[in-house]
């Protein structure tokens, strides 16, 4: 999922398909994602994995980096 998400952010959100996003790169403070692209990322995850991400889980801790998102999805099982 981490790789698919990295590709999605690079090509669909940033419009730079060759952009490499590091596992620990800060997606939020660096300005990579704005509030609307955060919503797109959530939507993408929900579609791809067929899960529901409740609003209270959409926090900085869970979505700050690809590694954090991966860990969050791991906890979701």
């Amino acid at each position, binding site marked *: 999922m981490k790789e698919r998400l990295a590709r999605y952010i690079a090509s669909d959100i940033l*419009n730079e398909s060759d952009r490499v996003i590091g596992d620990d790169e800060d997606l939020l403070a660096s*300005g990579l994602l704005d*509030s*609307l692209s*955060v919503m797109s990322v959530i939507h993408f995850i929900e579609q791809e994995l067929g899960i529901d991400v409740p609003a209270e889980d959409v*926090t900085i801790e869970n979505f700050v980096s690809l590694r954090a998102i991966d860990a969050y999805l791991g906890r979701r099982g």
Partner: protein
Amino acid sequence: MLYLLPHAVDRAAMRAPDREAIRYAGASLTYAALAERADRLAGVLRAQGVRRGDRVGIHAGKGLAAAVALYGIMKAGAAYVPLDPSSPPARQAFIVRDCGIRHVVTEPSRAAALRLLLAENVPIECVVGIDGEVTPAVRVVTWRDVDAHPGVAHDPDLVEMDLAYVLYTSGSTGTPKGVAHSHRSALAFARVAADTYGFRGDDRLSNHAPLHFDLSTMDYFSSALATATTVIIPDAHTRMPASYAALIEAERLTVLYAVPLALTHLLLHGALDKRDLSSVRWVLFGGEPFPTRHLRALMAALPGARFSNVYGPTEVNGVTYWVVPSLPEDDDAPIPIGQPYANVETRIVGDDGEPVADGNSGELLVRTPTMMRGYWARPDLDERVFWKRTVLGHFEDVYLRTGDLVRRRDDGLLEFHGRKDRQVKARGHRVELDEVEVALGSHEAVESAAAYGVPDEDGSLHIEATVTLRDGQRVTAEALRAHVATSLPRYAIPVRLDIVAAMPRTSTGKIDRRALALNAKGRAVTVEPT
């Protein structure tokens, strides 16, 4: 006597030296510390050659350093110019050159981004706030040097008419334009906001907007006038509604001020039912219309808070407001922009410049002490935006043409009816569609370009564009978007770009942008936000 913006901080430092002035991510500066650090920074800037009327850039994210920077720059007698660190380096470089910025205040974490800016061949001579050398070579002063400086006395020649800051906004000719405010105009609005909403020393105001966005001025300057605390919302929290809600609760914020889109996200994705937000007593919003159904739902979710619209172009800060009463369930009509704040004259005129008949729509002109001095180095734009009339013999009354069409309702409240020109608010950001078209047209393959706003479900709008190509030229939409990303801020980049063989034309042969926008609105596509 208080007549310059930094005087508000100095007065607060006398009255309540130990009160927190600014909080950011758990760290804080008391009023005494803020006043002292700003004095030291002013001393450094004076020593580096900054004089009254100079423009000094702030190249920093929101945080304690940026707060010190804006007061330190003004204490040195200069005007601060926020450079949006997330905008393209070429756009920042344009602003630096346009505004003649020779000094920049920054922070160590921005060193890499600052190098990109310096590589753009800009006239910057001195950078305050990084460690180590940079190329091309400029004079470097560290924050440690700032803390060791004894500070400086105020320039006694500085008066309230002197410039306090210049905020750059989208310009219809293809380059941004600087809105230059004086201490007088900024203080006039800070005072009217502090009075209207009754800000107190125990208030905790949020700063949600970035410094280059004029909403931020109330967060800092009204707060200092009231000896209140400003809590800066970190950028990450502005992107994560549930974290933003948690921060409001943890920081016990009493005044929120943000664009409607941010508050709509807070409502829809903030998990508000899990939070105690009873500390909030004012929710202020401005920048674009707030969809009535979302506003009503947010009011229900925060029953202890009062809500007020703040309306006004950057050129005049805020000029009208409406404290929103209970909204009826069955009416989603847009709320009015309201009544003038104290000390504001409004005038609604038709195309002939004469006041319209009662109840008719016309352009809103305002006369107010909160008005800018003018656009930076653009007398041609001043000529167009200021409307003057001679009174009492040879005196002149000066009004600002807002470009906004309004109508006065029977109850006296003003309603917003759109724009006279092609300016739109894309997710709260002011964008001239002409600037987007100029950016597209600067690509060698593009023959003609049309940009237009398309409404979103959440009540805001996004920008789309259609282009035709020169004979024999080929280019992808992705490449075109990448091209405009070198000159436009992110929110102004068309979310969708169509390349067509021929533009739809009106009967008079002009590009039919209305048809393009209607077509885009009707298209049931999932919009990929940028």
